[in-house]
């Protein structure tokens, strides 16, 4: 009976989790024949069954009455992305650590609780260098030109990007930060239970003519963060470049009734895809149990997304070690070898964040 209850609980939790990952937009599906049934006559915003576009009803004449004759406009969401992200981390040498970062809003570290922040001079002691390569699967139809990582609201981190001759010199980096807004507004969509945070973001400048998007089947490296935070699982958001997010609508011609029905887009962000990776998450004094919970959730999610093999001896051993935490602490040594990129990422992160010991070499 208990076992049945546990299974039921697991199924229920998985269902809730699935619902959290892919929230249902509160708009009806656009009918295939384009004929709107009478009970939906007061609905002006629909979504395609493939969730790649909104179908918007607007007055036939700009500025006209929404109750009168209407036209249909397809509003693409530019979300046909198949993103992936590879992570690596190394501890910086003392000479590499100190840096000064000037930011308008910056990390909210040290910013007074004003909603109108002023200049922040951040002396970041970057203990770790986080390095990322992003990719876009062949199944994608749109190109990635903008990606972000969720970080805790008070994270000290400095995102950078390549400059100079590199092809992606025109990728800009910065914070999508809201100082004073507790916790930040960005959901940890991929890490159940983790608190919302702010974003560090990279995007392709629309002003650039040389910038390279990450087209289907391609990848791009060179994205870095220096931070004193230890690694943990976090959510990455991917979308098209700002210049590629073209709307067929004149924003000033959209009646308020129509805009109101599309308001859900600010919470259910259909214009981007999420990914799971590791990033700067934990202060040096973060509770060990909190870190363990994060790794348990992240590894579970990677297994659920078929990015980790639950039968792998490395994964089994790591999961076993995390289950016995904090009782066993860092006494044990993981004997299994990591056999792929994901397992190597887990090994690197666990060494730093929880002091796990591994018998293997650094790379598989």
């Amino acid at each position: 009976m208990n076992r049945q209850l546990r299974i039921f609980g697991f199924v229920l939790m998985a269902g809730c989790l699935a619902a959290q990952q892919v929230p249902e937009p509160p708009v009806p599906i656009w009918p295939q024949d384009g004929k709107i049934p009478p009970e939906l006559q007061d609905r002006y915003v629909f979504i395609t069954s493939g969730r790649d576009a909104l179908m918007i009803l607007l007055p036939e004449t700009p500025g006209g009455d929404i109750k009168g004759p209407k036209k249909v406009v397809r509003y693409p969401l530019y979300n046909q992305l198949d993103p992936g992200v590879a992570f690596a981390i190394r501890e910086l040498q003392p000479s590499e650590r100190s840096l000064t970062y000037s930011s308008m809003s910056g990390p909210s570290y040290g910013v007074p609780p004003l909603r109108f922040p002023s200049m922040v001079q951040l002396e970041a002691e970057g203990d770790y260098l986080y390095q990322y390569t992003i990719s876009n699967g062949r199944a994608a139809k749109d190109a990635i030109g903008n990606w972000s990582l969720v970080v805790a609201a008070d994270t000290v981190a400095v995102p950078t990007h390549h400059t100079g001759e590199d092809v992606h010199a025109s990728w800009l980096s910065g914070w999508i930060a809201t100082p004073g807004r507790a916790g930040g507004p960005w959901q940890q969509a991929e890490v159940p239970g983790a608190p919302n945070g702010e974003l560090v973001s990279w995007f392709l400048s629309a002003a650039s003519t040389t910038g390279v998007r990450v087209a289907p089947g391609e990848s791009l490296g060179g994205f870095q963060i220096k931070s004193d935070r230890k690694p943990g699982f976090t959510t990455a958001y991917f979308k098209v470049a700002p210049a590629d997010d073209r709307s067929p609508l004149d924003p000033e011609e959209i009646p308020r009734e129509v805009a109101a029905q599309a308001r859900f887009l600010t919470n259910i962000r259909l214009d981007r895809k999420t990914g799971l990776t590791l990033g700067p998450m934990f202060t040096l004094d973060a509770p060990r149990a909190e870190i363990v919970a994060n790794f348990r959730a992240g590894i579970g999610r990677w297994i659920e997304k078929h990015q980790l093999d639950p039968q792998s001896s490395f994964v089994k051993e790591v999961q076993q070690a995390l289950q016995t935490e904090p009782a066993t602490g860092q006494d044990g040594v993981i004997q299994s070898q990591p056999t792929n990129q994901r397992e190597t990422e887990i090994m690197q992160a666990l060494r730093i964040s929880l002091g796990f010991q591994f018998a293997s070499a650094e790379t598989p």
Partner: protein
Amino acid sequence: MQKKLSTYLHSAIGVVVLFLFVLSSSAYCQEPKTGRATIVNYAQPLPTNSPHSLNVWCEYVFSGQPISCTVEIGSFPNWNSGGHLHNTGRLGSTISPAIGPAPGTFTLTTTAVAQEECLLVCPQPTAENTCDGPSFWVGDGWPDVNLLWTGEHTDVMYYNGAPPTPGAPNNNHGTIDHNHYMQSGPALDLLDAVNTYRNTHGYPPPPQPPLVCVNDQSLPWGGLFDVNQNWMGPHDSHRVGTSADVNKASGQCPYDLVLSEMESACEQNNANPLSTGIHNPGPHVHCEW
């Protein structure tokens, strides 16, 4: 005897007639009437483009005694109110019926213009009586923050008119003193969006340039911007203090801007993606929350 009695009777009748004459002339002829009105369920501001009931009655000016009468009633906009500093053709609320019996109920229908108005309630014939009526505000939303007055953020340039200074000449958008009102939530999101944009472009700390030029959030009580001096809009979406225009370099703005990136910055900071975008002519970014 009969003659004496008749004399007394005539005298008494004369006194009564005189008394009644005096009474009637003082009460019904000499004391003027005034018209009064209250707006039912009165709450300021009255929403634009919407009907509201008026309770209308007449009373004597001095005694305050209510009486029945016929009134003519109208609504008149106060000049220059609501941030509109031009008045030709300015629209006021309409009232139906324009003339009718009081006590009675009339219907006041506001226009899209947010402004102060005054009711004029006049018992007929007007020449013999006085008119009265309350002032009221017409408006949309609660654009309770004038961004021009929040001095902490020097990273934004608010402009309208040339030079872009308080008291600059009116060009139908209202003056710079009047067209930067917003509801507080969207105002904070707008400033966050400006921060996001400046941050990702590595701008120097404010007030060092380049700044970001924003304009036409809302007039003090919302309502339409009479951009074309015809009291018909456009700028419909700027009527409630939840929108702002962010501009690239122009005659009024010396600082350039990558429009698509500013659009993205607004959307990152809770703007509605559907109604946020690049608007032509201009072009400029219309950010709407």
